[in-house]
């Protein structure tokens, strides 16, 4: 079972339905203890980082997520879910993230319009087993005003929006995407499919 962390935030139905479309079974998990049964974990999130971080910590998922990470359970963060992998965001300085990856999240400056809403191309800087279906130059769907600024070399992909912005971060057993694979048509579904296979 792929567990989608349900902490009361985000477009969870879309993520579950997108997994169903690639033949994978994903379930919403609202009890942190139940996350121990998941063979892979998806951390979604949308909207305000502070709101997401607060709800995430309040729902008690932080220890379960860290535990999953330590056990090497495949972990996928989407949008603000990906941003939660970092220690903090400028959007809400008082609300900590998970700190699984070193670095922070900052408001995009020098951009034409905020939020960035729409399809933009990814430029790949590295490889990852779950990224096989995403090719450099593919258009994927972004909705965000803030972007990750990792402190170490975990950037696997960027996109150009008033400058180069982090679109994909990854490490062994972990992938974070700023875009929404569940809303990115074919390349997005391919990514979810690859992730689901890693969990099988």
């Amino acid at each position, binding site marked *: 079972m792929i567990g989608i962390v349900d902490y009361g935030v985000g477009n969870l139905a879309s993520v579950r339905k997108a997994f169903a479309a690639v033949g994978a079974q994903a379930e919403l998990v609202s009890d942190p203890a139940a996350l121990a049964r998941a063979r892979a974990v998806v951390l979604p999130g*949308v909207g305000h980082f502070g709101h997401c971080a607060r709800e995430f910590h309040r729902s008690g998922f932080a220890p379960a997520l860290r535990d999953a990470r330590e056990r090497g359970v495949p972990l996928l963060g989407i949008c603000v879910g990906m941003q939660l992998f970092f220690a903090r965001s400028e959007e809400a300085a008082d609300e900590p993230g998970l700190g699984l990856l070193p670095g922070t999240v900052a408001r995009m400056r020098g951009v034409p319009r905020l939020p960035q809403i729409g399809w933009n191309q990814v430029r790949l800087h590295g490889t990852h087993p779950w990224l096989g279906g995403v090719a450099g130059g593919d258009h994927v769907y972004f909705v965000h005003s803030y972007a990750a600024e990792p402190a170490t070399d975990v950037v696997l992909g960027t996109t150009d929006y008033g400058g180069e912005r982090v679109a994909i971060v990854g490490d062994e057993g972990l992938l974070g995407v700023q875009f929404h694979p569940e809303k990115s048509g074919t390349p997005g579904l391919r990514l979810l499919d690859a992730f689901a296979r890693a969990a099988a």
Partner: protein
Amino acid sequence: MTLAKRVIPCLDVRGDKVVKSVRFVDTKEVGDAIVLAERYDAAGADELLFLDINASHERRQTMVGFAARVADRIFIPFTVGGGIDSADLAAELLRVGADKVAVNSAAVRDPSLIGEIAGRFGSQATVLSIDARRSGAAWEVVIDGGRVGTGSDVVAWARDAVGRGAGEILLNSIDRDGTKLGFDLELTQAVADAVDVPVIASGGASAAEDFVALFRGTGADAGLAASVFHYEELTIAQVKDALAEAGIPVRPVAA
């Protein structure tokens, strides 16, 4: 390599059927909404807008059920609008898989609705839809399907709404709606200049060149059309080919 301009088909929905209004008066059925939505997805639409024009009391349930069925089948973003008058209804639509909700008349009557939805679900999920009608040198906000004038200035309302948390403006020219005279570039530019969120232009498009003119002449991020796509007078691919040829960034239609 930059953000693509979006081409968005609009589906006016009653029940599960798509209907098309001409200047908001006469409606004709054009087919099953979900089948049409899937066809647009395959044809390269960047996003879909569903406007519920059903006036019945069962509307709420109908809308939510419909949005859930769309989310089962469509893996590109979609917005639902039409008569959304509470943050709770917005919550239900977003919960079943809609990406954004568009508010219009209810937000004019009670502007705090915008902040309430944006506060709970974020600006990115909160679209303000404005029906604009030319009035002298400016444009007046009209509501209730274009029937009722408000006396409010469109540009001022757009600015106010963004301040309240609207993350996108869907701007429909009532004067151009159904006319096939092309987008109202002057109106679109006036609003795009006034706000820093994306603007979706709507009303009047009938040819690929109308989209080229829109993106060449204004700061709009997206162009929307309904009947010309439904009746297959124009395809998404034709629009995108013309845009690409004009050097405007688009997401290519998959081969």
